[in-house]
């Protein structure tokens, strides 16, 4: 995408490949993609099939992760839950990155009044406890996964905006931008055609880490009962029943939590790996 091919093949990829933890993260992320695509094929049961004979049965050969209070297979629900978390992670981060990049570009390129207004907006947004803001908006809307993704995105763009602004500020002063201006390029063309591709690589890191954050936020919302609504399985809302039945059914709490842990860990490792691979100061 943003990298020239020579750079991608000669520097970035070899560096990333040497980082075992990052590769592990990448492999897990890939596996999660496959799991969410193939969930209907690999899940041993229908995630919503109620079975009154098997209510809250502990892990066994039939139900590896046990069953929940309606006798549904927890493993199947966890596998299907991967779909939700993946979707939320990518859409929310997509929204955040788009808003952040546009605001950062405008702020860095035009500076002056535009810059002060936009950066004050960033300061203001950063003052709010993000989770409070998300909670306030989500509960006032109809419960829907799309609203969750949009709201998480709308409250998570500030870091990207600051990053892109800083990059833009330094790129703006470069000779090739001056050259572009001299041959009569419009501002829009300079911003999106000449600055954007060069300002966007640090965003890759915060986007990867952002996916992890968005997954955590969604699971917390679903856990509180205002995220993904049952019967649709999400890791967070399986944990809600985990809390209700904590005295009898530890498996309801353990497995979905582990799924979140592994997923978030994988994205974080991958993100850190990309950061190191992009950073010319890090030698490995």
């Amino acid at each position: 995408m943003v990298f020239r091919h020579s750079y991608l093949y000669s520097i970035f990829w070899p560096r990333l490949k040497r980082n075992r933890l990052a590769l592990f993260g990448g492999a897990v992320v890939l596996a999660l993609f496959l799991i969410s695509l193939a969930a209907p094929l690999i899940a041993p049961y229908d995630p919503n099939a109620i079975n009154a004979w098997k209510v809250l049965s502990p892990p066994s050969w039939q139900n590896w992760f046990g069953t929940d209070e309606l006798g549904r297979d927890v493993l199947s629900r966890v596998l299907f839950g991967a779909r939700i978390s993946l979707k939320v992670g990518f859409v929310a981060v997509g929204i955040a990155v788009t808003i952040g990049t546009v605001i950062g570009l405008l702020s860095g390129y035009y500076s002056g009044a535009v810059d002060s207004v936009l950066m004050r907006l960033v300061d203001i947004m950063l003052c709010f406890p993000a989770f409070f803001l998300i909670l306030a908006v989500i509960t006032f809307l109809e419960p829907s996964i799309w609203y969750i993704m949009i709201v998480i995105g709308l409250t998570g763009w500030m870091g990207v905006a600051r990053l892109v602004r800083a990059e833009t500020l330094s790129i703006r002063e470069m000779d090739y931008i001056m050259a572009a201006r001299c041959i009569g390029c419009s501002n829009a063309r300079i911003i999106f055609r000449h600055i954007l591709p060069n300002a966007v690589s640090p965003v890759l890191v915060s986007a990867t880490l952002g996916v992890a954050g968005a997954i955590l936020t969604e699971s917390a919302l679903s856990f509180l009962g205002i995220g993904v609504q049952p019967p649709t399985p999400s890791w967070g809302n399986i944990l809600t029943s985990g809390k209700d039945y904590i005295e009898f059914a530890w498996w309801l709490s353990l497995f979905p939590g582990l799924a979140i842990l592994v997923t978030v860990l994988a994205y974080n490792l991958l993100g850190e790996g990309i950061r190191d691979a992009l950073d010319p100061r890090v030698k490995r």
Partner: protein
Amino acid sequence: MTTYLLKRILLLIPLMFGITLITFSVIHLAPGEPVEMQMAMNPKVGKEARERLTKFYGLDKPLHEQYLSWVGKLARLDLGRSFSPDGRPVKDKIKERLPVTISLNIIALILEFGLAIPIGILAATRRDTWLDKGITVFVFVGFAVPTFWLALLLMYLFGVRLGWLPISGLHTLGSDSWGTLHYLWDMAKHLVMPVMVASFGSLAGLSRYMRSAMLNVISQDYITTARAKGLPERVVIYKHALRNALLPLITLLGFSIPGLIGGSVIFETIYAIPGMGQLFYQGVMSRDYPVVMGILVIGAFLTLLGNLIADLCYALADPRIRHGEG
């Protein structure tokens, strides 16, 4: 220094204004009426009563009028009255909840910094040993653990399995009549798990930050000089390096306030602790506009204040800034 301070304080005004504007629009642009919620409980209430209620809460006025009257009251430190049946002033409600959340978070912060600083120093001074690697693994896992899950696991382990700790509330019922010592001991037991959960979330990040700050300082020339003078390593690290490595943590302290307040929703609802997080959750669930707006604004103002204080402390702690012009 004085001009710097003045500038910072002047800058607070537009920021505070922006905070009120965003809070108000977030709450009022969302569809759904608080009155509907109350009506849903009691379907017999007629259309006329509904209008009366709407009027009573001032929800029939145009938005800008509602905003102006809200901000006007806010300036006089009046947050309005709760929509809940008790109709108490929001200020009183927050006043009784805020100390709980703040003291809990202060205990958590002390624990966090108390652990993260030594962990960070250890990781930095033993760089690339198994100890450092072990700490790195712990940090990454710590980043990835959802706090509410940790809360559940602790609840299962200490509350259900071992039965050592109470799993909800701040006091045992009837503890008011016990002796002071017994009362405090009871409260301390109730606080163990919430504090663990509250501090765990940022412990990982903080120790990572401390590690890199320390590494950064150690690589500087003056540390090499100190070593070349023949100072013992202990003195080099704890006397010369540590001071400078601690400086960036001050800023971090200011930044961590919104996260701490935001995180309180989770553990306060799980452990049934009567703090701001729980109040906010209840307010949001019952569409109690004044409570929700009040807490949002107060939370944001606290962050603003925290950042300002952190910056001032930084300036006071760092002689390069203290003695420079600014």
